[in-house]
């Protein structure tokens, strides 16, 4: 083969049509740019949210327990590279000289630079640093409000008097979220001793915080050391564990970002494929002429393959640069509107992915029409202005191309989602969508042909007939537009459902006060008092404390002695707070078995419901027997169901739930959950409640809620931003593919023009065709997207699916109008330019 000659021809052929080439390339560029930009954003947002969730824990690894680190464990702990800090936490009475008050508080003595992520937010801001140097303390803001304390006031802890440096506004560290309700006081570590609070036998919790370098796998370390630490009753927490606490919100975000990545992939494909496909199609007649002049089919193949390869490489590189640029500069433009800093770093994985996808898809999609050309005789190709159905489709090489496309897509999907199952589901989903759209296009072609309205006006008939004429674009447009609509509308629907769901978790709407230790006979008065403040009774629950005696026929001791049984000590040993109800509440979900709400007769078997994770920790299955000790009385029960409890909701969590009819007469106290509209009301309410019911303790959740709210807000903005950005880029990509396809209709319109068609006639013909295609593609695409979003929501996100018509309507209108607009816009040239010029130009 004379490569030099072939190169020269390829270049010469390209030279004659820079304008068109530019248009073709621009579609590749946009597709790849969309992919790179969306994925880079995605990457960076994940990083940002990661950092955010790290700031709840404040460190990568936290080891905690109620004794100081046993000597045999310190080698393992010391092996962790990076920064360290430690914290002693003890419950103690704080005495407030100013108003002679006192309150149980959690004293935290900090040594080292904790937190490594996020920061202690204080008022004044400098207090978070100054308290260590000044030997002063930080006190929880709710606590300070309760006792009307100001920075500078005094507080006595143990034997030592302290000055309050500032208010502590947030809540970080080991196990803070929704646990341990006593207010926190931070003291410098070196002051701990002089309080004389650390005595033999005093209850102290120890926490060891570690920040590790990026390359260190905290979870792996945990896996390796879990067993040894558990033996010593020490717990290990990593950021991932912490994140599970905001499971639902993070799951939504993760699934959504996965979906977004997938969308970007498809957009990239649509951009590249449509452009390459149409490019090659337009080249068929030139190829035929080369063949007629004696060029071998392989040589012709090489010429155009070279051209497309260069086109693909060029387009992908420009696309990757453009995408990265958008990703780097867009946040600078929108920065002010975002409630958080979007990290702008070049994302090399996204860039590499964009480049490789651009190249692979270009080659594969170019091969399909090019391979078909090899089979067609030169004369035939020269004659036909359009390829006839069926030619070459039996070529095994073509089928291999299709297969290769599917394989390549699967690999990309796998690399995006990290799960073979997900990749497989997505691929099957896409293929199905593809197939359905193809079927619809065939159906339309048949139906229009069969029921052709012969009595309509000429322009309408002409527009309709364009749908089924040879070389029609019904199939390609319906499939690409329909697929585009499907992914955009799926994205839109899922986005709005996620937002609804995340907003429902809105910390602002959550209850912010919990009242503990209420005697049953106080409940009536307390409820009246609460109502007099116009505050809702969000939850009122009775609590019975009991201990676990044993389960599945063995005592607790026997279980714990059995090292093979894998029973968690904390779960077995804890004093269990149990409530009884006849229904599940809104934050609970039944995931296995059957919930039994009532026990009719005193002698009947008692069926209880367990938190799923708790049951797992105790190695208990459905139907297993469990024995509780309620104030000396043994109760035998059977586990009939497992529940999942939504963590982010500020409700009291019950690992064990009894039915009605068992515990009504057991010794118990009540818990009341309510929501104060603002801090003033909160303070007033608390003061009155504590005065009237001295035994009741009031817990203020607002600092926990602040942290939670912050994260939820970020998640919801991340979702909104990514959705908006992806939808926008998607529309641009679709637009460019549409413009490409429209090229083909221009020549026909010009001929009509020379035969005397008026501007409005030509516009109407085009409008009819494009309106129909737009409506059909949008309609079918939306139907598929409803199914797709239902699948995503049910199997990935796990919350209730509701159809939202507004986003659907918006997508529909947008797609239809856009199609129509493009159809009409491309006839602009026809109407304005002189026909002879266009006709001469297009003679091929």
């Amino acid at each position, binding site marked *: 083969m004379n490569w030099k000659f072939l190169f020269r021809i390829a270049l010469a052929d390209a030279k004659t049509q820079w304008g068109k080439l530019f248009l073709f390339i621009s579609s590749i560029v946009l597709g790849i740019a969309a992919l790179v930009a969306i994925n880079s954003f995605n990457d960076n947002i994940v990083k940002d949210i990661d950092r955010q969730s790290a700031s709840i824990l404040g460190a990568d690894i936290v080891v905690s327990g109620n004794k100081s680190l046993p000597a045999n464990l310190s080698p393992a702990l010391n092996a962790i590279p990076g920064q360290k800090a430690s914290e002693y936490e003890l419950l103690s009475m704080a005495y407030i000289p100013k108003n002679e008050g006192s309150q149980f508080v959690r004293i935290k003595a900090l040594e080292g630079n904790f937190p490594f992520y996020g920061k202690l937010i204080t008022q004044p801001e400098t207090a978070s640093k100054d308290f260590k140097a000044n030997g002063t303390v930080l006190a929880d803001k709710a606590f300070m409000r309760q006792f009307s304390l100001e920075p500078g006031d005094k507080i006595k802890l143990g034997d030592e008097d302290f000055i309050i440096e500032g208010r502590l506004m947030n809540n970080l560290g080991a196990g803070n979220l929704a646990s341990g309700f006593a207010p926190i006081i931070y003291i410098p570590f070196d002051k701990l001793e002089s309080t004389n609070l650390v005595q033999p036998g005093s209850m102290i919790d120890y926490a060891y915080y570690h920040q590790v370098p990026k390359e260190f796998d905290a979870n792996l370390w945990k896996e390796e050391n879990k067993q040894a630490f558990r033996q010593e009753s020490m717990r290990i927490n990593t950021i991932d564990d912490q994140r599970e606490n905001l499971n639902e919100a993070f799951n939504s975000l993760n699934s959504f970002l996965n979906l977004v990545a997938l969308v970007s992939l498809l957009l990239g494909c649509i951009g590249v494929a449509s452009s390459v496909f149409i490019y090659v199609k337009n080249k068929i007649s030139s190829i035929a002429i080369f063949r007629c002049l004696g060029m071998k089919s392989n040589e012709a193949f090489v010429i155009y393959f070279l051209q497309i390869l260069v086109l693909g490489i060029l387009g992908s590189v420009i696309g990757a640069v453009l995408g990265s640029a958008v990703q780097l500069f867009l946040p600078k433009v929108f920065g002010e509107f975002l409630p958080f800093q979007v990290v702008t770093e070049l994302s090399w994985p996204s860039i590499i992915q964009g480049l490789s996808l651009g190249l692979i898809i270009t080659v594969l999609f170019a091969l399909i029409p090019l391979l078909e050309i090899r089979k067609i005789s030169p004369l035939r190709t020269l004659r*036909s202005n*359009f390829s006839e159905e069926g030619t070459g489709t039996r070529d095994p090489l073509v089928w291999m191309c299709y297969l290769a496309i599917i394989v390549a897509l699967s690999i990309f999907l796998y690399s995006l989602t990290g799960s073979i199952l997900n990749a497989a589901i997505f691929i099957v989903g896409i293929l199905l969508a593809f197939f359905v759209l193809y079927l619809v296009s065939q159906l339309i072609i048949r139906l229009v042909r069969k029921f052709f309205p012969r009595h309509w006006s000429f322009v309408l008939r002409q527009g309709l007939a364009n749908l089924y*004429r*040879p070389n029609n674009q019904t199939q390609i447009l319906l499939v690409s537009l329909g697929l585009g609509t499907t992914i955009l509308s799926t994205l839109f629907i899922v986005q709005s459902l996620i937002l609804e769901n995340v907003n429902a978790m809105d910390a602002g709407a959550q209850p912010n006060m919990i009242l503990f230790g209420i005697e049953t006979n106080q409940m009536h008065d307390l409820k009246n008092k609460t109502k007099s403040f116009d505050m809702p009774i969000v939850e009122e629950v009775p609590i019975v404390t009991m201990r676990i005696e044993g389960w599945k026929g063995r005592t607790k001791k026997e279980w714990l002695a059995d090292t093979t049984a894998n029973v968690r000590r904390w779960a077995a040993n804890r004093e269990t707070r149990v409530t009884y109800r006849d229904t599940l509440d809104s934050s609970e979900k039944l995931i296995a078995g059957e919930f039994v709400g009532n026990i009719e007769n005193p002698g009947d078997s008692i069926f209880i419901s367990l938190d799923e994770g708790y049951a797992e920790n105790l190695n208990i299955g459905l139907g297993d027997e469990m024995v509780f000790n309620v104030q000396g009385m043994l109760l035998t029960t059977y586990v009939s169901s497992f529940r999942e409890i939504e963590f982010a909701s500020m409700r009291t969590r019950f690992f064990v739930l009894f039915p009605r009819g068992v515990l009504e007469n057991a010794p118990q106290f009540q818990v009341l959950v309510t929501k104060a509209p603002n801090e003033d009301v909160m303070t007033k309410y608390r003061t009155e409640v504590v005065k009237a019911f001295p035994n009741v303790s009031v817990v203020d959740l607002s600092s926990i809620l602040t942290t939670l709210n912050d994260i939820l807000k970020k998640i919801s903005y991340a979702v909104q931003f990514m959705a908006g950005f992806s939808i926008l880029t998607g529309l641009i990509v679709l637009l460019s593919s549409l413009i490409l396809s429209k090229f083909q209709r221009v020549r026909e319109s010009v001929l009509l023009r*020379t035969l*005397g068609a008026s501007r409005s006639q030509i516009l109407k013909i085009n409008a009819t065709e494009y309106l129909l295609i737009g409506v059909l593609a949008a309609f079918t695409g939306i139907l598929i997207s409803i199914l797709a979003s239902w699948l995503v929501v049910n199997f990935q996100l796990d919350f209730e699916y509701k159809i939202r018509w507004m986003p659907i309507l918006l997508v529909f209108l947008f797609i239809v109008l856009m199609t129509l607009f493009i159809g009409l816009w491309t006839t602009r040239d026809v109407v304005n330019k*002189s026909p002879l*010029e266009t006709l001469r130009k297009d003679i091929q």
Partner: protein
Amino acid sequence: MINNNENNVDVLDLKALSKIYVSNERELTVLNDINFTIKKGETVAIVGPSGSGKTTLLGLCAGLDKASSGTVKLYGSNLGSLNEDERALLRNKNVGFIFQNFQLIPTLTALENVTIPLELQGASQVKEKALELLDRVGLMDRSSHYPNQLSGGEQQRVSLARAFSNEPKLLFADEPTGNLDGETGDKIEQLLFDLNKEKDTTLIIVTHDMELAGRTDRVIKLKSGKIVSDTLNK
């Protein structure tokens, strides 16, 4: 053959017409100071060597392109002062065009191609008229074929039928018999001249065929964009 010139309406009136193409910053004068008038019912042949500007001239006359300078008056209307829509309407009403390279719409069948001008006019019994025309050019049985399924000569005949379909008062034919064998060519010629006789259609034919040129009333010879002779056939 001499036409009776009692009806003195100017169908076409060209004054100082020039066409200059600019490409690669070089000016190419394709038509230079063309002047002539054509009366109703006249048959005119435009002859000249390849590249002399015949197709360009025809295009200008039919309002398919814009002149660089000078005026073209078609039925009294100055084409230069009309917009594209008005020119399209004028074409549809009065003008038929047979292209050198046929210019059939590839995605329409032969029949559909022929019906277009009628459809654009909003005529009735479109299909019947189109079929009759196809019959006259001998392609009745090929009416449902697409252009790429027809031979060059057949395509040319379809384009002829299309040009006739709106019964134009003025017909431009760019080498209408160029691709045809003698016998079919003669038939087509006969069709053209019959139309002229029956409907008093003005014919302007570009041709290399001197025999065909001999049958017209008048022969205009072009060379390098200029009229070198304008003679009446006696």
